[in-house]
């Protein structure tokens, strides 16, 4: 891992040198929720607003041309980053949830899913890759089925059999709660064998892993900017061009049309067909800068660091009496999110105590209530790591957990 210098990287993130209440240094272990942003991203957004701001595509002046170019450059960068065969396959949305809702909606409206068809998800989904499919099933009369999860926190691919009735398989690449990295290539193979489309929720994958959508072979991939050192307010739906070209629009409005009369409208080609209204312009600039930042570090290095810091955290936390990790306990096919429970202390109280030590984690159901039910817990505490996380921060987490246990007499 030459050239991956965490201390140097941390200097790009001024927020990481902040102190919290009681003059404690911030230990930010909530990156699966949202990542912090490097100076390079914030400055790119600032420069855009201060020097190039205008609306895109419809402003016939010089600033409009600059803004349009900047916006579309963000698309080019994202397309290159994920190995998209064509830049027109990258649709900007407001977040990953909207990207997933978009694809679920237009697959129904476009007649790709209908009554009696089957949509398959997993018990491991974030609500944003479950609820849109429930809604699609309700609208169309399709049946919703799912793969279960093993006690270890892996996908149980034997728990459901795909048939020619299966039209869509929607699955998360990396679980936001368990950290599990799913065998997406195998799922794509099985789904395509029966002619089903594959939708991948890559919200936790694109930030951590090198991603090549062409090699992956899925039909749609959704992710969000703010978890990959980019800004909030921008998500991405990548889709195979022939599918995007076939499918009807999602939202109607400006920018998504070809021509409009009072009676009817014809629609623009992808990606603009799916981008009604003023798009996230400055956010595209910021996401482009984020992608540049990650590319400079090298996604193989980011992934290797994630792996190494997760292994360090797992080995420390596995040793702690009274602490149970919910999800894979070995650093194999595993991302940098560790959910856990502490005997006798509710997760909210754990998070509160850790916060009092400056350690920021998430507590609750992490938008994955059905998955928590699988493990018989109502909520968990989750620590999640990223390219700026240090071993010293994991040590602070462990010390915080010990402090919490003694505070509550657990």
């Amino acid at each position: 891992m030459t050239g991956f210098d965490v201390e140097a990287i941390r200097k790009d993130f001024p927020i990481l040198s902040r102190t919290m209440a009681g003059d404690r240094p911030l230990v930010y272990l909530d990156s699966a929720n949202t990542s912090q942003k490097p100076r390079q991203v914030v400055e790119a957004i600032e420069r855009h607003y201060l020097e190039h701001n205008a609306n895109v595509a419809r402003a016939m002046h010089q600033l409009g041309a600059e803004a349009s170019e900047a916006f579309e450059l963000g698309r080019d960068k994202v397309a290159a980053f994920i190995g998209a065969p064509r830049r027109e396959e990258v649709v900007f949305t407001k977040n990953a949830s909207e990207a997933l809702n978009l694809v679920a909606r237009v697959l129904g409206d476009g007649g790709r899913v209908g009554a009696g068809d089957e949509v398959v998800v997993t018990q491991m989904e974030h609500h944003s890759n479950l609820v849109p499919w429930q809604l699609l099933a309700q609208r169309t009369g399709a049946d919703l089925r799912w793969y279960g999860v093993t006690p270890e926190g892996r996908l149980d691919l034997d728990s459901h059999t795909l048939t020619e009735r299966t039209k869509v398989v929607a699955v998360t690449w990396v679980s936001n709660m368990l950290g599990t990295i799913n065998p997406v290539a195998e799922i794509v193979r099985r789904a395509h064998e029966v002619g089903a489309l594959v939708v991948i929720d890559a919200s936790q994958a694109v930030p951590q892993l090198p991603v090549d959508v062409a090699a992956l072979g899925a039909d749609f991939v959704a992710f969000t900017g703010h978890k990959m050192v980019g800004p909030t307010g921008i998500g991405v739906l990548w889709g195979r061009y022939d599918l995007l070209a076939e499918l009807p629009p999602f939202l109607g409005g400006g920018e998504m049309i070809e021509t409009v009369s009072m009676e009817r409208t014809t629609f623009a080609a992808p990606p603009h067909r799916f981008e009604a209204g003023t798009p996230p312009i400055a956010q595209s600039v910021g996401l482009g800068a984020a992608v540049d930042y990650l590319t400079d570090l090298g996604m193989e290095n980011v992934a290797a660091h994630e792996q190494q810091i997760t292994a360090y955290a797992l080995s420390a936390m596995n040793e702690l009496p009274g602490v149970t990790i919910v999800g894979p306990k070995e650093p194999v096919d595993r991302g940098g999110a560790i959910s856990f429970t502490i005997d006798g202390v509710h997760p909210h109280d754990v998070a509160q105590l850790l916060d009092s030590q400056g350690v920021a984690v998430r507590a609750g159901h992490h938008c994955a209530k059905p998955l928590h039910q699988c493990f018989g817990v109502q909520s968990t505490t989750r620590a999640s790591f990223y390219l700026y996380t240090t071993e010293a921060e994991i040590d602070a987490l462990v010390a915080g957990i010990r402090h919490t246990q003694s505070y509550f007499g657990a």
Partner: protein
Amino acid sequence: MNASNVDALYQEIILDHYKHPHGAGLREPFGAEVHHVNPTCGDEITLRVHLEGSRVADVSYDSVGCSISQASASVLNDLVVGKDVDDALTTLNAFQELMQGRGQVEPDEDVLEDGIAFAGVAQFPARVKCALLSWMAWKDAVAQASAKEDS
């Protein structure tokens, strides 16, 4: 507010109620049963109210949640059972005012008894909803039970 000062939040009284909740469990008879959730964190409570005329004869509950929400349900039970509905609603208002007062409201111990321990919670905005979960469930249930009594 100083978020490092968790002792203001976790008063001994709160931890006592959390470890030894008063009136926990679901009991018969009851005039109304409600189920309230806190959608952001997933805390849940099922709560029953039994009225005898205008008196709160019993409040029984089954809940999953953090120390603050559990202790709050226990204190609720202490404060409203045996009281006249109107008096209990006055207590609810006092508790709600304390919780939503951002730490600026001076609690009246005569009215709130152990509930004054929650004054510190008001300084932690993210936890106010934990403290109010059982109270809002009770308010809902008592309205339903009263409507039934009247009909």
